[in-house]
């Protein structure tokens, strides 16, 4: 009895201390993110480190020479083929983000300001294309833009052209059209969310102070929805630089992008270090471009005042 009585209080204290530890905010926070964090660490950070390491090594047929070299980066940055591919990738992704945001903004605006009771229905309709596979959606553009495709048949039927045009498919424009369509929903959603947060009284206040609909939009609604525009641009721009399925399917010879070259180095060409150097270069340039985009939009926002 006495032993139990002596033993009980310390046990209770440890439990209390453990409870306090479990209830502290940092511990709870770490506990919540740890599964994802570990997953990201193992499957994201480690592979990236492996890729970075490879980019400083050299491939000798089947073996890898692990002496430090910058030769891969020299090739990646000076070899015209890679430079061209990189430029084209950046051009395509910038154009795609620009068109996607330009097309997504009015849709998001309409749903947010004029969606009324049917807002969730509209958002639901926007997600419908995602019920099919990405590949199917890209393939459907092949059907639309192809030699005997929907667009050519329609134009011929209308008498606009005499024979099917080959200019529609297998070039960078086809890649841009396909990607713009594929990423639309990812741009609509963040813009919609930021428009939802714009206090409608602010628009009324702008009107009250003399602004017509266009002015109040440019001076109040647009600057206040800039965070949504920034996320939309980044969400579309970053992944499209590295897209390689779309150029492979609809891009033809003129639509090849840097990701196709990287894939070739890791696959057929079997030059992992060069592939790694191309990846790292692309990553760095995309980061710079993303940073520059954020800066430009912020500056425009400030100028709108």
């Amino acid at each position, binding site marked *: 009895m006495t032993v139990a009585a002596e033993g009980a209080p310390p046990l209770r204290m440890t439990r209390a201390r453990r409870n306090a530890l479990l209830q502290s905010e940092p511990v709870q926070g770490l506990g919540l993110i740890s599964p994802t964090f570990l997953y990201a660490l193992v499957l994201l950070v480690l592979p990236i480190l492996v890729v970075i390491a490879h980019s400083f090594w050299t491939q000798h047929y089947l073996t890898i020479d692990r002496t430090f070299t910058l030769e891969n980066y020299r090739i990646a940055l000076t070899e015209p083929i890679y430079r061209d591919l990189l430029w084209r990738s950046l051009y395509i992704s910038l154009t795609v983000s620009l068109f996607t945001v330009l097309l997504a903004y009015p849709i998001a605006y309409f749903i947010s300001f004029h969606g009324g009771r049917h807002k969730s229905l509209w958002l639901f309709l926007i997600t419908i294309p995602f019920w099919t596979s990405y590949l199917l959606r890209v393939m459907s553009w092949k059907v639309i833009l192809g030699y005997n495709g929907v667009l050519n048949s329609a134009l011929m039927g209308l008498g606009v052209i005499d024979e099917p045009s080959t200019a529609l498919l297998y070039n960078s424009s086809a890649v841009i059209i396909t990607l713009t369509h594929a990423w639309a929903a990812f741009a609509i959603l963040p813009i919609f969310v930021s428009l939802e947060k714009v206090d409608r009284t602010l628009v009324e*206040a702008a*009107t009250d102070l*003399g602004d017509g609909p266009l002015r*109040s939009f440019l001076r109040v609604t647009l600057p206040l929805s800039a965070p949504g525009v920034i996320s939309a641009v980044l969400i579309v721009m970053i992944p499209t630089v590295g897209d390689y399925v779309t150029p492979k399917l609809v891009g033809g010879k003129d639509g090849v992008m840097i990701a196709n070259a990287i894939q070739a180095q890791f696959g057929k060409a079997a030059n992992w270090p060069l592939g790694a150097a191309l990846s790292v270069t692309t990553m760095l340039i995309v980061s710079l471009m993303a940073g520059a985009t954020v800066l430009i939009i912020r500056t425009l926002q400030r100028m709108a*005042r």
Partner: protein
Amino acid sequence: MPEQPGIERSDTDRMQSEKPMIEIRDVTRSYGAFKALDDASLTIKEGEFFSLLGPSGCGKTTLLRMIAGFDNPTSGSIAVGGQPMEGIPANRRPTNMVFQSYAIFPHLNVEQNVAYGLKRLKLQGGEEKRRVEEALAQVSLTGLGKRLATELSGGQRQRVALARALVMRPKVLLLDEPLSALDKKLREQMQVELRRLQQAVGITFVLVTHDQYEALAMSDRIAVMFGGRIAQVASPKEIYQRPVNRQVADFLGGMNFVQAEIVEENGASLIVDTLGFGRIKTDKPKAFVRNGGGAMLGIRPERLRVLWDDATAKFEVAGKVVERHYFGEITHLIVEIPGLEKPLSVTETNDFGADDIPVGTPIRLAYDPEALVAMAD
């Protein structure tokens, strides 16, 4: 209370022009079967501080938004400064608004907020800067021009909203419950400041409020609204002392209602019999409609005064204290009067010791028969 010699008594502080600034004619606003505003007519004079007072859902905000141009009448017409407002969008009306939430642009600083409406006017040679400075000085915000909206207190945000509207020099300034988000002390201070500002700039102010003290303290005239209809339009004193009906009387503060029998009705006056107060001659209210032989009289709690010791008054009622509530500078006494259905509520200042009257004490109350007003039920 004897009139003090040398003090001229007047209901309003200042001579106003009799020129109408806002004319509202038979305005109705329906949402399906529901009428937010039902056949309202009203004239607001130039330079007047006018309040629309009523409980939530009475149509006061709807009316204000229709003057501003954010909503349109289903039928009827609104004119501002003699100009019909039909078809004129909010951005081209000579009115500016102070919103309930203040609607300060969060991406702009104080100066940019105030200058917002001026930017479009493209003023020459530092005129814009001068007007912004002047407006900020009017609301005592000089020196805070570079602050962001997020760095301001509630009271300061309210001042920015005020400056932003005043800088446009509107014919009419519309205020939608501008003080409701402030704490009591700041609210009372702003009431005084708003009134002072209105007197200084001379612009017509239309204030929407559900706070009767706010309306009484600031306005030249008040329109009391219930259920989409305007019940009474008059000066604060008239509204408080001579409410047209029971609803208005109740909304503006405590009122003792006394049932009376009409003995005689002649011209502008009524002679009535009450159980507690005896036979009384009273003014007949304008909208009085005789409904059988009964009438409703009312007297405000502070118009009943406790008679101490053996003091007497020409008119008095006797009763017994049944409840006592202490409020610092005043005490509320609930006094039962033989013959009256409901006990009377009496407000007495505490300088003679009303807060020490024990419950159960017999008491006599003095009153002025003029303070007993007849009203529609």
